[in-house]
């Protein structure tokens, strides 16, 4: 019976290993990473995966071997209470690995999330497209600066002031729902708010997630490294799902960059969604922004800025 159970444990545990191994080929894997920090995050993921795989194989093989080996009748068990040497070995080695894992990731996290790092960045004069996102049940409301303010970069001092004051509302802001438009290789800083319950901003392709808290405005930054949006002259709109190959655009369904809500927020939590449109150039983005501004001004009843949470 021992072999039967050895086989049972062994085949299930092996099946788990094999499923994980084939998943990338079956396209059941991480979506394409397209931000400036997604390579670092993915590297960390793969490093942990390697460590975890090693220990998985080691421990499960030992377990299955133990199950199979114990089948001989009349077998006598070894009388031992343990081994101090082994205890040291299997405490120190995992300990060193864990501490290493801990240390190598601190900078990655700090660079992405620490507001102090963002502030330092502003003080160094780096330029960000600053925009506001206010989440609510069950949509995202984006607030862009007007095309005039984007075309010419503001002074470093003014940009820093906008950052510190969480991008105050302006009369000429452009309001769009659910669509985040940026352009390639440009740092973007979102001031994230929510007017009702907790929500979250999750861009799987950017590997970026930030939960929104009622009562706070939280700064979130990213830089998209791949364009996916081009102007469609027939419909006079910008569409995504495009990949640039040299100077040509190729249709690619993987180049649809979704935005989903990952903080439970009620009935339509699973339908609260947006898109990330990455324009190839600043000019293309500005053309879109101008069109959005015109739509804002033309339409009656466009959602205007609601300063519920100053």
């Amino acid at each position, binding site marked *: 019976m021992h072999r039967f159970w050895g086989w*049972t*444990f062994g085949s*299930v545990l092996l099946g788990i290993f094999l*499923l994980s191994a084939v*998943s990338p080929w079956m396209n*059941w894997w*991480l*979506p394409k990473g397209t931000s400036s920090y997604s390579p670092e*995050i993915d590297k*960390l*993921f793969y490093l*942990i995966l390697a460590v*975890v795989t090693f220990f*998985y194989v080691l*421990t*499960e093989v*030992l377990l299955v071997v*133990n199950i199979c080996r*114990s089948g001989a009748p009349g077998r*006598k*068990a*070894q*009388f*031992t*209470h*343990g*081994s101090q040497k082994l*205890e040291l070995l299997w*405490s120190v080695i995992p300990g060193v690995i864990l*501490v290493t894992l*801990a240390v190598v*990731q601190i900078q*990655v*996290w700090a660079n992405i*999330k*620490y507001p102090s790092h963002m502030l330092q960045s502003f003080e160094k004069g780096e330029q960000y497209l600053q925009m506001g996102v206010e989440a609510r049940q069950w949509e995202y409301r984006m607030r862009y600066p007007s095309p005039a303010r984007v075309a010419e970069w503001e002074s470093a001092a003014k940009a820093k002031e906008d950052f510190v004051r969480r991008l105050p509302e302006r009369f000429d802001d452009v309001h769009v729902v659910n669509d985040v438009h940026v352009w390639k290789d440009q740092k973007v800083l979102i001031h994230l708010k929510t*007017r*009702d*319950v907790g929500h979250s901003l*999750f861009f*799987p392709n950017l*590997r*970026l997630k930030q939960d929104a*808290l*009622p*009562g*706070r405005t*939280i700064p979130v930054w990213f830089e998209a490294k791949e364009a996916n949006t081009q102007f469609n002259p027939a419909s006079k709109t910008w569409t995504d799902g495009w990949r640039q190959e040299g100077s040509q655009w190729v249709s690619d369904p993987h180049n649809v*960059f*979704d935005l989903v809500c*990952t*903080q*439970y927020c*009620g*009935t339509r*939590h*699973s339908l609260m*969604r947006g898109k990330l449109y990455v324009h190839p150039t600043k000019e293309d983005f500005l053309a879109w922004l101008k069109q959005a501004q015109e739509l804002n001004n033309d339409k009656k009843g466009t959602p205007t800025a609601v300063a*519920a*949470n100053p």
Partner: protein
Amino acid sequence: MSATHTHEQSFVGKYIFSRDHKIIGIQFLFTSIIFLFLGGLLALGVRTQLGWPNAEIPIIGKWLFPGSAGGKMSPDFYNMLFTMHATVMIFFVIIPWLTGAFGNFTIPLMIGAPDMAFPTLNMLSYWFMWPAFIIMLMSFVVFGGAASSGWTSYPTIASLMMPEGTTSPASMGSGLGQILWLTSLTFVGVSSMMGSVNYITTIINMRAPGMTLFRMPMTVWAMFITAILQAMALPVLTVALIFQLLDKTIGTTFFLPPAGATIGNWTTGPGGGQPILWQHLFWFYSHPAVYIMILPAMGMVSDVIVTFSRKPLFGYKPMVLAVAGIAGLGFIVWGHHMFQSGMDPRLGTGFMLATILIALPSAVKVFNWLGTTWNANLHLTTPMLNALAFVALFVIGGLSGIFMAATPVDMYFHNTYFIVAHIHYVLFMSSIFGLFAGVYYWYPKMFGRLMNEFWGKVHFFLTFVSANCAFYPMHIVGIGGQPRRYAIPVDADYMAHLQGLNTWISIWAIVMGFSQFIFLANFIVSLFTGPKASRNPWKAATLEWGTPSPPGHGNFEKEPLVIRGPYEYSGPECAPGEDYAVQAPNLVVPEGIPTPVKR
């Protein structure tokens, strides 16, 4: 210390409001198993929607969802299902089963005490669960339905005071259902706190002569440290629950930000609190809670593995230190549930360091279990198979935790199915397999009969295979980025291709659910027709096996005199022809009934 003492007890005093720890333990056991099936049913509801989104549910669909065309599940109902599944499983199944049932049953027996230090308090700790049960069950039928904001009940979706009546504009279940949820859990907390005080006192004060702390079995160590966790963490949860209850009923604003909140067209009044305060208070309890939900199982698994390896536990003192280490570190890692929450990310770094370190004592335990089963004489009985499954699958659950401990990687995985996979590997695949091991192992001591080995193995095989087929792919869909708590699972473009995996998971979840009826049938039928158990059917060394099966009131016929540790198997102290040496030889009586167990 007197041993058995007889006095006349009414039926009610003996079986209903019993103050005997064994009966109380069995009471906890019975209600936990009942709620296991309720929690499982709720999970099958969740999996039905995820496997076949927006399908017309056959037979009961039209009755359950009269408003929808054809009987389709509404998102609000789905949100209630996952909320109540988690709530029931955590508070009415795993914690009462591990600490209430097994803590109660095993502690006095394994330390050589006639009962707990405070028998009346013990009885109260069980009966305080009943208001909790009734209130929680009532919440299913009030207007708005049961709570639906996740078992985590974050403000502001869960916590707003209703503008009128008992319905919340934020969410259906955040009305009266949420108020009842909060009240019910307050009773659960009080019950657990009563129990924990009892266990700590009993273990410190009532050990038999010779039972030093380092001669206690791992089960008792685990229950002891878990009780300390409960005693220190629960008050914080209780406070949080009361704060939210006050916010919802009399308009306090512990969790409402200064500018209030605007739900649709309705704005609350001004606040003055912080939604994130709830998260800190809640997780300060709920992280230790997850260790409350695993440490007792780890202790029981150690005892089962040793008994069926016929070998001492490898590294007894390191194992005790590891349990203490996990518990101690468990108090300073709660922020890892809040890495992406808007909490200061510098705190995140601190919590990350402590969280990564917790993998170390867990790893030490796994290696020691492997050391115990190395060069052993393994008897693959049903309890042993369940215990070995615990070890095999806890490895997976623990290793997946390392991804989430790494804050940049957690940015991707937080609130995805990767978390759900991790949770279920450590809770279902670890705690529940540990619980099954404990039931099959101590059943003869509890009821005087053995469960059926064959059907036990069938149950194990089906559960082991189907659970892994159901839960492992959750890691994969999580890597694909599928969020959790989604009524419509994979609608967005980037994850639409993951529907097939979701359906696969649901099918195996159904198989797994139905397999548990085999356990239930075995449990019930064996109560009446199982082979009668001897005092020590497993030939184990710990003290409980020196009593009749089941033990009488007062447990021991004479006071145990402990002369050795709990794990002296296959060593020089064993009697000739035997491979175990009992802790208290003065308890041994000649066996009258042959051991019918096939090894």
